[in-house]
C-alpha cells in the first residue's frame, strides 16, 4: 500500500461517516419533536454533509480517476463505504438520536482536534474548519443528554437504554489497521487510542452530570475498517441513492 492509497482510504472514512450521519440527521427534517429541534437537527445534517463533500472531493483528487463527490455518494455499494457503524444506527426516538449524536460528536471533536495538526494540509484545514462546527454539535447533544438523563424518571430510563444499546458500536470508532499505521508514521493520521482517552473523559463528564451510568464494556461490533456494515446501511443507501440511480441523467 502506498501513502496515497492509504490517504485515499482515510478520506473515505472521514467523508463517509459525515455523509451517513448527515443523511440520518436529515431524516429528522419535519419530524423533530419541536420546531427548534427540527431546525437544529437539520442544521447539523447540513454541516455534516458539507464536511462529507470536502472529504469525498479530496478523495477523488487523490484517487485521480475523475470520480466526484457525487460518484462516491451515489454510485458505491454498501461494501464500499467506510463509515463508522455508529453513524448508520437508525434514529429511533429523539433520545436515541441524541445519544448517538453525542457519542459521535465527542468522537469527531477529539479526532478533529488532533487532526488539526496533520501533516496533510487538506486534512488539517478540514479538521480546523470542521472542529468549529462539531463543537456546536457536541454542545447541543451534551445539553440534551443532561436534560433527558437528569429529567423525568421516564426520560432517564429511555436514554439510559439508548446508551446501553449504542455502546457496543463505539469500539469500532477506535479500531485501526495498516492504513492508520502507515499514516501515523507520516504524521498524517493520529493514534485513535489517544483519541479514545479524551473521548472517554468527555463521555464520563457528561454522564455524571446527566446522572446516567456508563455501560459495561462487553461485546463490541467491528466493521468500519473493512466496509462491513449492519443491515441498516443498505436501507439508508437505497433511499439516498434512489434518484441518481433511477435517473442517472438528472441534473439539479
Amino acid at each position, binding site marked *: 500500500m502506498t501513502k496515497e492509497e492509504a490517504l485515499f482510504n482515510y478520506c473515505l472514512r472521514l467523508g463517509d461517516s459525515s455523509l451517513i450521519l448527515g443523511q440520518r440527521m436529515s431524516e429528522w427534517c419535519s419530524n423533530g419533536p419541536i420546531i427548534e429541534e427540527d*431546525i*437544529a437537527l437539520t442544521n447539523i445534517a*447540513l454541516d455534516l454533509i458539507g464536511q462529507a463533500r470536502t472529504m469525498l472531493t479530496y478523495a477523488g483528487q487523490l484517487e485521480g480517476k475523475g470520480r466526484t463527490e457525487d460518484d462516491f455518494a451515489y454510485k458505491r455499494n454498501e461494501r464500499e463505504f467506510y463509515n463508522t457503524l455508529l453513524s448508520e444506527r437508525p434514529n429511533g426516538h429523539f433520545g436515541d438520536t441524541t445519544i448517538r449524536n453525542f457519542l459521535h460528536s465527542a468522537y469527531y471533536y477529539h479526532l478533529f482536534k488532533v487532526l488539526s495538526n496533520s501533516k496533510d494540509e487538506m486534512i488539517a484545514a478540514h479538521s480546523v474548519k470542521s472542529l*468549529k462546527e462539531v463543537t*456546536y454539535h*457536541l*454542545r447541543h447533544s451534551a*445539553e440534551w443528554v443532561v436534560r433527558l438523563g437528569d429529567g423525568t424518571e421516564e426520560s432517564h430510563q429511555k436514554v439510559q437504554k439508548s446508551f446501553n444499546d449504542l455502546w457496543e458500536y463505539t469500539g469500532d470508532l477506535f479500531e485501526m489497521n495498516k492504513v492508520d499505521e502507515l499514516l501515523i508514521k507520516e504524521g498524517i493520521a493520529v493514534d485513535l487510542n489517544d483519541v479514545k482517552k479524551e473521548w472517554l473523559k*468527555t463521555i464520563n463528564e457528561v454522564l455524571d*452530570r446527566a446522572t446516567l451510568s456508563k455501560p459495561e464494556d462487553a461485546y463490541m461490533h467491528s466493521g468500519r475498517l473493512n466496509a462491513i456494515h449492519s443491515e441498516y446501511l443498505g436501507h439508508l443507501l437505497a433511499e439516498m441513492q434512489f434518484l441518481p440511480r433511477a435517473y442517472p441523467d438528472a441534473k439539479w
Partner: protein
Amino acid sequence: MVTPIEYSKEQIWEFLSEIPDPEIPVITIEELGVLRNVDIIDNRVIVTITPTYTGCPAMKMFEDDIIKTLHQKGIKNIEINMVFSPAWTTDWMSEEAREKLRKFGISPPIKGTADKGVLFANGPKNVPCPNCGSTNTNLKSQFGSTACKALYTCNDCLEPFDYFKCI
C-alpha cells in the same frame, strides 16, 4: 482568439466586493470575509473564496453571482478557487458590517467568544436585542434559521431574534 482582460485585479475586486450575501443582503461577500483574493494569471481571472460553514448552501450562490458579475463585465475566463485555510471566522467581520447586521435585525457576533468552553457554555450572555437594545435576553436554540445563526429571545420587548454566532 482570446480577448485580453481589460481590468486590473483591483478593479475586479471592486466589482466583486459589491455582491451581496444572498441571505443577508445588507452585507457583501467582502464584508463577510468570503471573498479572499483575486488574481489574473495567463488571461484568466482566479477568484479565491472560502466557505463560512462547510455545508453553507449559499456558497453555490456566491459562485454563481461571482461568475454572473464577471460575465457582465465581459470576463469569460474565470476560475473559482475554494480554500479552507485559514478557516473562516466571524472575527473577520468589520465594525461596519456588524452595525449593518444589527440594523437589519440580526444581533452581530460578539468578538472573542468563539472558542470558549465546549460543554455547557450555553452561548454568550448579554447578547443585545437588535430591536430594543436590551441585554436581558436568553438563548433559545444554538441553531437558528441558518447554520450561522442562533435563536435568542428578548425578555424586555419579548421579540425573538437571530444572533450571528461566533465561529
